[in-house]
């Protein structure tokens, strides 16, 4: 692929490692060659780097697909997902998921980027709905402010919620910030 075709979110390989283009700055002095100042994100380890290319440089295209996958269960430090298209199962290490792992509930559908059978990234929905399994602990240390308290959700994660939330309530949670959004249903 010619460097001129590269834009934000284009993915290509450098020495076999896939990178996603986060930003392109195109600079072309007068009658001179174009320069492309790229900000790249390593899709294996998430690190970023800057790289400059010149007009007519070529980069190695890579095919990354986005597949819908359903979370099945946890096996040791691995999280098992099933591809909704071909029912193949994939093991995702805990480190790749980071804080997302605490919102994985059986049946949750995530968007998974896959390069040649290898999982690069798991994107979970921005909002998930989870039930409260353990209500407020009454000890003072668990109280963040007068209006909020900590509860435990069905995936085991602890969350700060308003005082009115009770055991059994289903909550909408923002997975990007790990924060309470609203109560979806009162006690069932």
């Amino acid at each position, binding site marked *: 692929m010619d460097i*001129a075709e590269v834009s934000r979110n284009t993915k290509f390989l450098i020495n076999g490692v896939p990178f996603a283009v986060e930003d392109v700055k*195109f*600079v*072309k*002095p007068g*009658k*001179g*060659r*174009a*320069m492309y100042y790229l900000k790249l994100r390593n899709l294996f380890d998430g690190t970023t780097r800057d790289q400059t290319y010149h007009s007519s440089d070529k980069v190695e295209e890579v095919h990354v697909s986005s597949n819908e996958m359903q979370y099945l269960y946890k096996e040791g430090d691995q999280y098992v997902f099933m591809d909704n298209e071909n029912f193949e199962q994939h093991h995702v290490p805990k480190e790749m998921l980071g804080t997302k792992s605490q919102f994985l509930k059986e049946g949750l559908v995530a968007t998974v980027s896959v390069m040649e059978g290898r999982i690069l990234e798991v994107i979970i929905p921005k909002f998930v709905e989870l039930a409260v399994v353990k209500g407020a602990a009454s000890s003072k240390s668990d109280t963040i402010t007068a209006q909020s308290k900590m509860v435990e959700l069905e995936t085991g994660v602890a969350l700060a919620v308003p005082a009115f939330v009770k055991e059994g309530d289903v909550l909408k949670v923002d997975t990007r910030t790990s924060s309470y959004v609203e109560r979806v249903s009162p006690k069932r």
Partner: protein
Amino acid sequence: MAEDESLRLSRIKANLERRALIYDVIRAFFRSEGFLEVETPLLVPTVAPEKYITPFTVNGWFLSTSPEMHMKRLLAAGYSKIFQICHSFRKSERGQLHNPEFTMMEWYRVGSDYMGIMQDTEWLICTLANKLCSGSTIRYQGKNIDLTPTWPRVTVRDAFLRSAGWDPFTRLDEERFEVDLVEKVIPSFDAGRPTVLLDYPVAMASLARLRPGSPPVAERAEVFIGGLELANAYSELNDAAEQEKRFKQEIETLKREGKRSVVMPEKFLECLPDLPECGGIALGIDRLAMLFCDAASIDEVIAFPWDVV
């Protein structure tokens, strides 16, 4: 996600109004200087062979990359002061300061040279500042810029020696030239004043006349204001043999690199013996509008940039 079209268009409306005002001032300026506004074809059978400018192809012809060759044919036929505002097209040029279809203004003055054209430029920009900003100082991206003539001039040699530590006239490394120009030389210019960078190495002359000397220099000047490369002026080359030689080199390079095959612009070369001594310039109107609208991106001064056409 792309911004809603009507939202975007209403957001940049003030810029487009200002842009229209810029056209009014430019036209009045050149009329008062006795210039004739001309129009030349946008759909052309040949473009000037240049390594780093790629034209769009239309049924074997091209969208014009610059009106320069046709304007010089007018000059060769006896027109002495002409200007034009037109769209030009350059493939793959897209960025904060580039749109593949952009607006170019060129003017030519017979009996003048690149320094005479620099004076025209200074007066034109000052007139614009007076009419649009009622003064000779404009504010661009958080900095005041004093546009009062005469603008500081620096030769390519001095600028490179000072900011990049090497002399492009002793041994020209074109790739390093461009990188250092962008990363070292341009950032070193006084942000509070325009800068005229002039006298280029012979290998970068393009359509400019050479001034003999030791070393010889190409009489070419570029104008930078607020970090924007605004215009490129030449003492125009009218030596047909020399021009043909330069075009041949470019054509050879393009062929060797397998980029494209290029047809020699014969009609243009034929007119050159009749081209009188003159100076000329190409000025980017979109960037001029950016400057006077305090816009950081070309997308703020164009109603329909490339990606949303």
